[in-house]
């Protein structure tokens, strides 16, 4: 006889406020197969779990229904619980009476009736549950980190320090990311390069880290523990082994006036270049589009001056395939393009710049050697206006979300203006001032109190230019909501705190490697609170601003957390796999192959089946061996999504844990 135990959770008042938990537990007792039923305030707590284990022993339960929150929240918790109570962990069903009942209803009687139905269904289903065995797959002990910003560098270092090998793939010629472009960092104002470049050097010298620069991930096959990753090394036309990094080629290159991406186009670079002097690796690449030789067929000056014979114009993109046990995605962010803001001049006013451009203007190694000069005429601006939330918190034009770092870096920028230009004025237009970080509020207040930064609460409705040459100025028209008045501010330069956005290729990249992304194209974590660095694809983790806007302290913390997850995975020799996978009933399978293209994980393929035919059949002699093709599921790749099962015309595919029989039993229980 099957014996079901039903355990109803109050979730504090989360459930009990809208559902009569006692009545629910009482009613469950009458359901067929139910041998025991009870309720408790917090079923997931230690006493709650003990209650379940004791009931299993005392009443000889062989399967369990927990009526509580979403299975995404605590299914694993309760599986472990009944496992230690002596049952197979898959003899459990969760009735979600919180997210799908108490949280969304208000009428207590009706909600209780619905919760009753949900419990009914779970009981009907659990009666059909079978014990599912776990299987084990080997783990390849090597990690891949994609993106070499501070997030990727930190994650690589943390993984490498535990002894595992890490490859760090960066698509630019150098690692460093945005942090390399930033001048000083809030709230301590230590110089970004001084804290970043030592880490870059550590990464390049670490025996367990291989930096793969100027490369991109092309394809990810396989599954947790055994990802087969194809990496494209882009042709750099410089042999990085032979190159000594002397820099002579860049010095002699005749095409010098190419806008430098690293300098946000405020400075120039040659066609054979390394993005910045402290680049790691410090090996140049040739920008084919702008190289005189590639354009005209003549030049090759770089090859002539190279004493190491490292320049190779015949270089080609190269594909390498490497196997990894785990992947960290740390591809960072990009900035909102303010040329979408018509009222701020569509990007046509030279002296309306972004925050990152400002970073280059104050940076000692930047295009102006750290002297703040406005781009239009290289004069020192006296009145600098800052506008926050450009593209952030703007439903009409930009994004709904807050970019989190801008309040702080704008406070930093304004302080720097006041510090570097004595007779200057720094005025910040803001909607709110958000300083939720350690020592952040103090930092902002110091700007106001010690440096005399002026804050004006209100949005800027328009910027327009007046005057010519040296007399050219910008008029910033906005509302001072505290005065309730329109204000017009003369500015020599305007700095826009533009929103942090996902990389333009984020969605495509996510699809390529098989992770999900949110409505803004930031990569999705598995659970916003409890699994913040995991993705829903096992073995792939997230670090840094690719998951959502964040500053450096949060980025570094997340990178460390992702590294810990990777190390936990790699430290196992083999790992248990989820037994909820599709299963083929080969007797029924007609070999039509419909399921093969449906599978998003490429887990289904054909296999040959040899069988002996008995009795008399129309198509041949009896007792003969015949060969036919049937579908075969690779348990390592199958993620248990069930897409194939609904597509199988013969009903030969079933998802273990969600068999057709189980689902139908649930439906039947409602009538």
């Amino acid at each position, binding site marked *: 006889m099957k014996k079901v135990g039903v355990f109803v959770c109050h979730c504090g008042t989360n459930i009990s406020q809208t559902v009569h938990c006692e009545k629910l537990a009482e009613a469950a007792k009458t359901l067929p197969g139910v041998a025991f039923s009870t309720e408790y305030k917090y079923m997931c707590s230690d006493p709650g779990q003990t209650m379940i284990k004791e009931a299993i022993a005392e009443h000889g339960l062989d399967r369990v229904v927990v009526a509580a929150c979403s299975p995404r929240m605590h299914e694993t918790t309760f599986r472990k619980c009944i496992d230690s109570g002596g049952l197979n962990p898959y003899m459990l069903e969760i009735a979600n009476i919180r997210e799908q009942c108490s949280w969304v209803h208000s009428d207590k009687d009706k909600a209780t009736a619905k919760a009753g139905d949900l419990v009914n269904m779970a009981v009907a289903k659990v009666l059909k549950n079978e014990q599912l065995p776990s299987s084990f797959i080997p783990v390849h002990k090597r990690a891949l980190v994609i993106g070499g910003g501070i997030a990727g560098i930190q994650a690589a270092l943390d993984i490498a320090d535990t002894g595992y090998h890490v490859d760090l793939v960066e698509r630019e010629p150098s690692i460093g990311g945005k942090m390399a472009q930033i001048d000083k960092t809030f709230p301590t104002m230590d110089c970004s390069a001084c804290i970043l470049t030592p880490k870059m050097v550590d990464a390049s010298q670490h025996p367990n880290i291989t930096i793969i620069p100027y490369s991109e991930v092309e394809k990810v096959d396989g599954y947790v523990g055994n990802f087969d990753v194809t990496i494209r090394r882009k042709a750099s036309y410089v042999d990085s082994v032979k190159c000594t990094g002397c820099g002579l080629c860049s010095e002699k290159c005749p095409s010098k006036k190419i806008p430098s991406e690293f300098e946000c186009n405020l400075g120039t670079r040659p066609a054979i270049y390394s993005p910045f002097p402290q680049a790691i690796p410090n090996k140049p690449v040739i920008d084919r589009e702008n190289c005189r030789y590639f354009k005209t067929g003549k030049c090759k000056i770089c090859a002539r001056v190279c004493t190491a014979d490292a320049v190779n114009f015949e270089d080609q993109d190269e594909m390498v395939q490497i196997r990894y046990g785990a992947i960290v995605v740390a591809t960072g962010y990009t900035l909102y393009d303010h040329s979408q*803001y*018509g*009222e701020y001049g*569509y990007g046509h006013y030279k002296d309306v710049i972004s925050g990152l451009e400002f970073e280059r203007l104050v940076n000692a190694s930047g295009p102006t050697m750290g002297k703040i000069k406005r781009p239009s005429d290289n004069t020192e601006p006296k009145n600098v206006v800052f506008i926050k939330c450009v593209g952030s918190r703007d439903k009409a034009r930009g994004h709904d979300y807050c970019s989190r770092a801008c309040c702080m870096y704008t406070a930093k920028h304004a302080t720097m203006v006041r510090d570097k230009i004595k007779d200057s004025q720094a005025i910040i237009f803001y909607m709110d001032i958000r300083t939720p970080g350690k020592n952040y509020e103090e930092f902002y207040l110091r700007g106001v109190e010690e440096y005399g930064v002026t804050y004006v609460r209100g949005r800027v409705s*328009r910027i*327009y*230019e*007046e005057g010519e040459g040296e007399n050219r100025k910008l008029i910033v028209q906005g509302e001072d909501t505290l005065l309730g008045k329109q204000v017009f501010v003369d500015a020599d330069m305007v700095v826009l705190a533009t929103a942090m956005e996902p990389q333009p290729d984020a969605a495509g990249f996510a699809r390529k490697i098989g992770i999900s992304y949110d409505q803004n194209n930031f990569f999705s974590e598995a659970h916003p609170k409890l699994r913040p660095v995991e993705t829903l694809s096992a073995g792939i983790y997230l670090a840094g601003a690719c998951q959502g806007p964040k500053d450096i302290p949060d980025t570094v913390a997340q990178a460390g957390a992702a590294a810990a997850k990777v190390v936990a995975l790699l430290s196992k020799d083999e790992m248990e796999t989820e037994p909820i996978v599709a299963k083929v009933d080969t007797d029924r399978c007609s070999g039509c192959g419909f399921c093969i293209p449906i599978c998003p994980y490429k887990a289904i393929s054909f296999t040959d089946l040899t069988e002996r035919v008995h009795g008399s059949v129309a198509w041949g002699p009896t007792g003969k061996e015949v060969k036919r093709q049937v579908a075969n599921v690779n348990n390592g790749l199958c993620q248990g999504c069930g897409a194939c099962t609904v597509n199988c015309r013969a009903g030969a595919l079933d998802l273990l844990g969600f068999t057709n029989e189980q689902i139908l039993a649930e439906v039947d229980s409602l009538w």
Partner: protein
Amino acid sequence: MKYAYYPGCSLSGTGLEYNISTQAVAPLLGIELCELPDWSCCGASSAHLQDHTLALALPARNAALGEEQGLSLAIPCAACLSRSKAAEHAVKTSEDMRAQIESLIDRPYQATYPVKSILEIFIDAGLDTLKENIIKPLTGLKVASYYGCLQARPTDFMDVDDPENPQTIDTIVAALGAEPVSWSHKTECCGNSHPIAYPEVGGPLVNRILEQAEKSGADCIVCACPMCLGNLDMRQKALGKKRGRPFNLPVFYFTQLMGLALNLRPKKLGLKKHFISPIPLLSKKDLLKRIKIKKVKNKPADTPVPASESTETPTPNPDNKKGGPA
């Protein structure tokens, strides 16, 4: 193309020159404007302050009358346009509102024929058609195109090319051979009725627009709204006095400039109806004279003389000066 012409109240009063110039220009470009019979006031600046439903029903009535004839409304006034588009939008997005409006106006209104601004209609007719018909290009005239608020906003239902930097009037100005200046206050508010009721609020708004137009190097302003034109034209004298330096920026309806380039008589365009007379500017730029078109004989009467032919011989005719308003 045939449209139900909805002049609205302003165009029989303060905006008379908009009315006559529009009606003079349209047929030359193959646009047939038949005044909507029994049209009523759209409620413009007052109704929507009183009653939301009424403010939608008033313009809906006119559009519904057009619909009965199977015609789109052609609306010159920006305020009428804005209200009519608001009504159209409401009817399209809310069944409930449509039912309310229909019961108020006592007739069905499905918004099948989109209400259109006269500006949109001229653009739709094709800039090439316009260019082909130009006889007197407005060479040398620097024009600040002013759209105001209602032409460009709200973006929910005003299908404008670009709410921050609209180009429609500019493209017409350029097609006429004049030079549209790039300036910052194209869509700033002129204060609507505030310059009349609260000059201390409205005055500075108009002042800013005029000053920016001046700084942009424009000789004149061109607009598509009787309220804007009223404010910008009528206030110049007082504002000039206030700042101690007179303004002298003639303000045109774009249809008046079109009429000039199409060689219509200035009288037909109401050019004498402005507070800041455009006549001195136009004669300085040599744009007042009409160009005599030689009737080519031996050709069927209905074959129009190609414009290019006539512009090739812009023989200045001193006699013509008399014909123009002095």
